[in-house]
């Protein structure tokens, strides 16, 4: 009995110590533990929460980081007032909210934005207002081809082509079918990239654009399989990917064709949802590091979320994106004189961001001053669904997207990456 008590006591102490250790692990701001008390700096964000999908994990993670920052000295003593708005996937509302944040709340910067519709609706307004957006997640083409908008994620096209690169290198694919949503500037844009690359490499390729609102996934998957491709690459939101894979499994196609997907399907719930029938057969592109990676910045992200986020906030790639956006905003604002933080100075500071290193990124992030479009994250890796979890199966590799030529030229001339 006494031995058990001692063991019990020892394990209790160890648990407490490790818990305390974990508590102290979140690192942000100056790590002083002193809350910031100066005049708040207003940073805004627009996210698509209510609607076909919930993108708000990005802004939740950014909020957690800003809360951590405010508890640790803020931006040289000034706390960040982070205002998040839900545009309900409606571009009209997105425009209203942008007006609110920029004109009424006088935000100096936007960080962590994650909305499907706001890039198209607001890019022009942001440019006219002179405000920069360090977005968390962008999806349609407009998010990657706007002067004032720089997402931390790679985008569906770059991501899909990363998957295709893997198919070419590791799966020796000779024919590919691309399934994308028939949303203009998303599906056509992504699958066009596949067709372009296929033409360059001399592969057979086909595009199928499907209505994401369709109830009939079986016909689409039959159409895709009709030409007997080696791989089928999906560029659909996860709410549409799961029924499509279900329909494919119903038809036994998970055994005969390899299915790949852009990073939109990389979510911790997906392997468990699609089931054991897909073990080893569904390979997904990752725009950021493995969610459970033990590298320092990834662990810091998890620690920040544990300490300053809600327990119910999902720790997914959107959250990684939001955390990174918040850190980039912090890095930029820290270079400024705290007495002179305005929209102009904040924009100038963000423009100068280059070589932002984080082990969540494959390659250092940069804003790209002078570029008319921004797509700094274009190096990705792949993971396979295995036993209800994701298993990373490849190293970081630059995406072979032909459209990235201007980005690569800019990177070379600026001495980046």
């Amino acid at each position, binding site marked *: 009995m006494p031995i058990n008590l001692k063991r019990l006591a020892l394990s209790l102490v160890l648990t407490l110590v490790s818990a305390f250790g974990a508590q102290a692990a979140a690192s942000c701001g100056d790590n002083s533990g002193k809350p910031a008390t100066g005049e708040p700096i207003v940073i805004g964000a627009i996210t698509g929460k209510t609607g076909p999908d*919930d993108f708000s994990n990005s802004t939740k993670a950014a909020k957690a980081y800003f809360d951590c920052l405010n508890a640790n000295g803020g931006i040289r003593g000034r706390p960040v007032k982070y205002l998040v708005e839900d545009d309900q996937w409606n571009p009209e509302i997105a425009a209203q909210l942008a007006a609110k944040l920029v004109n009424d709340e006088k935000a100096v910067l936007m960080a962590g934005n994650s909305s499907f519709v706001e890039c198209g609706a607001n890019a022009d307004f942001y440019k006219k207002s002179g405000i920069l957006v360090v977005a968390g997640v962008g999806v349609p083409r407009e998010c990657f081809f706007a002067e004032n908008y720089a997402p931390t994620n790679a985008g569906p096209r770059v991501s899909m082509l990363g998957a295709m690169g893997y198919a070419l290198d590791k799966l020796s694919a000779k024919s590919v079918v691309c399934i994308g949503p028939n949303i203009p500037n998303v599906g056509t844009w992504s699958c066009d990239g596949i067709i372009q690359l296929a033409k360059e490499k001399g592969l057979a390729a086909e595009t199928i654009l499907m*209505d994401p*609102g369709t*109830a009939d996934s079986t*016909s689409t998957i039959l159409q895709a399989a009709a030409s007997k491709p080696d791989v089928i690459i999906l560029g659909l939101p996860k*709410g549409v990917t799961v029924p499509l894979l*279900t329909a494919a499994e119903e038809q036994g196609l998970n055994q005969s064709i390899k299915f790949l997907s852009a990073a939109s399907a990389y979510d911790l719930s997906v392997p468990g949802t699609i089931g054991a029938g897909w073990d080893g057969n569904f390979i997904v592109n990752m725009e950021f590091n493995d969610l459970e990676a033990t590298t320092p910045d990834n662990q810091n992200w998890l620690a920040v979320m544990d300490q300053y986020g809600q327990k119910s906030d999902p720790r997914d790639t959107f959250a990684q994106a939001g955390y990174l956006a918040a850190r980039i905003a912090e890095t930029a604002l820290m270079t400024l004189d705290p007495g002179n933080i305005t929209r102009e100075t904040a924009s100038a500071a963000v423009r100068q961001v280059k070589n932002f290193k984080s082990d969540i990124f494959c390659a250092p992030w940069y804003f790209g001053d002078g570029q008319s479009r921004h797509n700094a994250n274009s190096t990705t890796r792949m993971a396979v669904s295995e036993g209800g979890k994701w298993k990373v199966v490849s190293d970081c590799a630059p995406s072979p997207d032909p459209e990235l030529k201007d980005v690569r030229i800019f990177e070379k001339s600026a001495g980046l990456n």
Partner: protein
Amino acid sequence: MNILPFIISGLGIGAVYALSGVGLVVLFRATGVLNFAFGAFGAIGAHCAWQLLEWKMPLAVAIFAAVTVSTAISFLYGRLFAPMLSHRDVVVRAVGTLAPALILIAIMGVIWGELPRRLQFPTDQMFVSLFAVRLTFTRVIAIFLAVAMVVAITLLLNRTRLGLDMRALANDRDLSAVLGVRILYTETAAWTITGIFSGLAGLLLADLVRLQGTFLTLLVIPAIAAAILGQLRSLWETAVAGLLIGIAEAVLTPIAWISPYRAAAPFIIALAAVTILGGAAKSALKDR
């Protein structure tokens, strides 16, 4: 261009439309209310079933719970809220069912969110193979359920006292009351029956299509196309129409230029039928 596989996959989606369409017409014939919340009643039942399965409850318990939840909500609406609108015209009573649909979408959104989920039944693993396309037993069950419902309700409406009361009620509420039809009892019975049906249909739809609250609720709109083709009257015609519009939607897939628009097939077919058959609005649809 081989369209045979698509005819079979069309049977799959057609089963979905047939099931929902029959459910709509059943309630309409029994109470004169077109229930826009039919999908929502089923969806919340399906979510409850999914939740119970996540908690490792046996399948039978989950199915029973789903049907019970759907029936309870349908009963509640039919007993307490639908009578409040009974003095308004048909369209307002139908628009009134948007209210429970919205409330249920809100409840499902708050509790479960819009994360894609999969509801799986053991019958998904068993299949019959036709023209190199597999038709899972779940889809076959859906078709059978639609047919069984048609037979059962037709028998109920034509052979039983309750059915007679229902038809009278749907035709003219006030006159039926004068004639001694137990209005509240009959109406509640109709809503309960539709609730049971929506629970079963909801489970099948969640398995066959996807388990997502808003999506399952909005499936009622193409189901209305099947109901229109059945002229809001004939259950058999609705079921067959549902299968046919499903097949039509599926066989358009291989035709590249029309494929992005194929989801509009149910609507276009319903419109064409109405235009060609003319204002063949039967007496059952007279203005009330």
